[in-house]
């Protein structure tokens, strides 16, 4: 995994895992790598991975079974939730960028529709 060095590493790993879950590479109920193995694989500090798992647990995307490891939750809605959240993030950035260019949302919608028709 290539990291951007000016963005928190734990956030980049969280995004990657969410992406893996929404793409089905990581399935509901599947066990995640141990903190140590994952940190060695990504070549990052193990505390970074601990934080990733803790934050994902806070977002109800994974859960920890004591002594067993960390797992993706089995809830089928989780996939949809992650997709929705990722879409929200994309759109938020998109709107910010539009604002900077002084383009209204209506204008943007018109342009989007034009592009779709092309």
């Amino acid at each position: 995994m290539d990291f951007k060095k000016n963005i928190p590493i734990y956030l980049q790993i969280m995004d990657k895992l969410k992406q893996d879950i929404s793409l089905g590479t990581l399935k509901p109920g599947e066990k995640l790598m141990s903190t140590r193995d994952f940190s060695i694989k990504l070549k990052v500090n193990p505390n970074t991975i601990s934080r990733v798992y803790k934050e994902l647990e806070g977002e109800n995307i994974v859960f920890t079974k004591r002594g067993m490891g960390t797992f993706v939750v089995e809830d089928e809605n989780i996939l949809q939730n992650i997709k929705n959240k990722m879409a929200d993030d994309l759109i938020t950035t998109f709107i910010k960028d539009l604002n900077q260019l002084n383009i209204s949302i209506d204008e943007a919608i018109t342009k989007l529709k034009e592009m779709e028709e092309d």
Partner: protein
Amino acid sequence: MENLIISNLTKGFFKKRALNNFSYSFKKGMVYGLIGPNGSGKTTLMKTIYGLVKPTHGTIFMNGEKISYKTRENIAFMPTEDIFMPDLTGNEILNFYSNNFSDFSLEKANRILEKMKLPLDEKINTYSTGMKMRLKVTLCLARDVELYMFDEPLNGIDVISKDLIKDTIISMTTENSTLIISSHALNEMELILEQVIFLNEGDIIRDINLEELRHTENKSLESLYWEVYNV
């Protein structure tokens, strides 16, 4: 939990001050980086903590005990200097360490050596710089102590050795120990270090948590370095 507490540490060599009223508390379970140009006090700090250099002023406490030859039993230090007798083989050096440090674990050493790929039957004078560094790191990490200090573990070695050393350091960090690493290889150490102390002429000029730096300032360690030292 803080296990290494340094207060007002000053070390002068004749008129020059290598450390200037240095105070810091190191915590367990963390990996610290010591960053700074040559002569900024990194090595002197490590050697003072290990008890090889006597402070001019100030105190260092390890788990409530003042630093002495006794606290050294709980500290593993990898200096930059060549520490091996060239006529010994890798195995002979391993045995030497195993006999001399009661906390040295041959089992742990063997686990590390599985990855380090060293010709242990051969004499040290046939080893490359990278191989010697790999052995030095192994000997340091195979001890079971609360504080590990590495002075420039990636300096002047090949890419593969660098990678092996980084992986080993990552795999050997624990919640119960503190790691202090001095390095010029900012780009390579960036994802391993958590807290970074910038030194200049024996003073702390910046003390920063790297994830926080990325979060609040959108900066990398390397870009902060240029800014701090104004070069």
